[in-house]
């Protein structure tokens, strides 16, 4: 079946999503959305394995609750792409806004450039469902806050100097999952409940497949990246509140 093209010029997100669902129901595997200009909720709750190419700038909550499809964005994305996403892949050839990959429970979000504040907040994992967020550029404060599972990799590729990561509240309240930051992080950036150390060769081996896939998407050289040192940030405890309370 040839790719289905939808011209979203001036279209509200509800009819747009209805057309996407219709195309998927009719067996489309490739859907191209033309002239996207801020429509929210693209692919919201969508299931299946279709690939959706977004030409333009999608609005917030791209791929929210999505289970399976791939969304490729040629442009920047607004806040919270991959919000509570279940399975599938979102690839953004640009930057994305705050709360990218918020509460994601499975699948992958790859952002070539930067993300906003609170990236990967409250991501969680269960058995073989492990969400992955890879960011090529920089992230703002509260990266991985409340993180309960999953994996965040921050590559900081635009950072030529050896400046350590210096955004506050890193992994604040983390009680599951792990974060890898290329290079070092300032001690003061670490939020409550998190601990940092240099990544071991075993750690690096575990993230290598995602870095390779990321590089393949965006045309970076994985060898150069893997040659760098990384800092691993992980929770001190899976029970951060176990000692906070006394019985009445």
């Amino acid at each position, binding site marked *: 079946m040839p790719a289905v093209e939808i011209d979203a010029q001036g279209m509200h*997100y*509800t009819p747009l*999503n*209805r057309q996407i*669902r219709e195309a998927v129901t009719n067996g489309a595997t490739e859907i191209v959305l033309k002239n996207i200009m801020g429509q*929210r*909720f693209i692919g*919201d*709750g969508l*299931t299946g394995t279709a690939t959706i190419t977004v030409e333009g700038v999608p609005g*917030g*909550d791209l791929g*929210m*609750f999505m*289970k399976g499809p791939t969304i490729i964005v040629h442009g920047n994305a607004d*806040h*919270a792409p991959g*919000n*509570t996403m*279940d399975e599938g892949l979102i690839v953004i050839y640009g930057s994305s806004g705050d*709360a990218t990959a*918020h*509460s994601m*429970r499975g699948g992958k979000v790859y952002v070539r450039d930067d993300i906003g504040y*609170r990236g990967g*907040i*409250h991501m*969680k*994992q*269960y058995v073989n*469902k492990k969400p992955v967020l890879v960011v090529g550029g920089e992230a703002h404060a509260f990266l991985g*806050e*409340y993180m*309960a*599972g999953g994996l965040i990799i921050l590559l900081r590729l635009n950072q030529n100097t050896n400046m350590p990561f210096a955004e506050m509240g890193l992994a604040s*309240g983390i*009680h*599951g999952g792990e974060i890898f930051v290329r290079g070092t992080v300032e001690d003061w950036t670490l939020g409550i409940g998190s601990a940092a150390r240099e990544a071991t060769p075993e750690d690096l081996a575990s993230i290598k497949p995602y870095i390779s896939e990321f590089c393949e998407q965006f045309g970076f050289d994985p060898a150069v990246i893997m040659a760098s040192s990384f800092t691993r940030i992980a929770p001190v405890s*899976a*029970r*951060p*509140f*176990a*000692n*906070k*309370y*006394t*019985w*009445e």
Partner: protein
Amino acid sequence: MIIGSRPLKFQVMVDHDQCMLCGRCVENCSYGVYRMEDGKIRVNSRNCVACHRCLSQCPRDAIMIAERPCDYRNHPVWTDQVRENIFKQAESGKILLGGMGNTGDYPIIFDRLVLDACQVTNPSIDPLREPMELRTFIGKKPRQLELKYGPGNDVELKTKLVKNLQLETPIMIGHMSYGAISLNAQMAMAKAVSESGTFMGTGEGGLHEALYPYQNHMIVQVASGRFGVDVNYLDRGAAIEIKIGQGAKPGIGGHLPGEKVCADVSCTRMIPEGSDAISPAPHHDIYSIEDLKQLVRGLKEATEWKKPVFVKIAAVHNVAAIAAGIARSGADAVVVDGFRGGTGAAPAVFRDHVGIPIEAAIAAVDTKLRQQGIRNEVSIIASGGIRQSADLTKAICLGADAVYIGTAALVAMGCRVCGTCYRNLCTWGIATQRPDLVARLNPDEAAVNVSNLIHAWTLELAELMGAAGINSIESLRGNRDRLRGYMLDETMLDVLDVNAVGA
């Protein structure tokens, strides 16, 4: 040991003349009060929480439990509770954690409101003979109806109606998650609401497969932890509820302690076994009414606009203005949870001191929405401290469309409101995940109890309406003229928009 032992909170006494040494108390007490020693039942009263499981199982009425048999020196300011709280915090340096609802000594407004009845000038209605319309629709109502008249008497409705929940009685069961309570407790309530033609909430714990047969009567919750939320879950629910806040602990999140995260709970919530399940205080994508609107719409998009979306907030100072914002967010109902709402665990300081009573909140919200001409945009569901059919009836008179009950449904299954839900030791098999304890609660039998309670309250509501000469729930809703305030001050009467008795 500076503070040392305190007087017993409960003293357990066994009448050894009555006791037949059956050992049921030993077997039933999960708190470790009883042991059989030297051919006698021995007790450790200090472990007792007064859950009364032992009493309920004792064939000889041989057990007696007394509360605080030893007095502290009486003092109106430095009460026993105040002194003991200081002891505990001086020893631990920790936040006091409590279960169940508000223990503060606040007057209950419901108990200072009285209902009306007909005498002479307008006849009362006998619900035994006359039909009483209790069916309630929860969701958006159109501002006006557009009709198209065809040939003859043919009339076509042009206005597009949005999906509402159809309740056969305005009593629903609120959100208590699998995790906080057992699957058997959820099963019992799910059977009861299905039988009674009403609905219950899942809480933020996902929807266990065993509940799928009752999914048409389940409201699925999306809270800040997003536990168990996926498209399958959203599609199964009859409606979706966004939980912003909870009356028992407004402004803070929830923590399901790792002890309660067993294999099955971990599966339903989709988090690792034994890890704390932390619902943060705010939703990380909601910082304004506009953001709320985005989540409401996100959920509606995900379910193709087929499900009503409710928003639940704790009743706090500016509840009316907040509810007006929610009404404009596209939500179909606003759930207002008063400061007497129950919980499995909450910091006692929040449970007892934050939020406002549901009676004032309902009145304020209903008034504000009517003033702004948007009362039809949302239904109002009231919860938090609905103890009996009189509270239900008064809540509707104050402006609620329906109520959620919580604690009352648990009490119908045996709960004695001992308030130690967070210890995972509930002897009644309700607020625990321990398999041997959960097995004590037979879902089929408990369903009959819960269903009986809903049925009994529904009958009483119909009787009260009949006595007031009202035969339709619509005529009762917001009908504050059928209420009078007894010993309420003028300011309170103004907020409630209710006259004083005799006026």
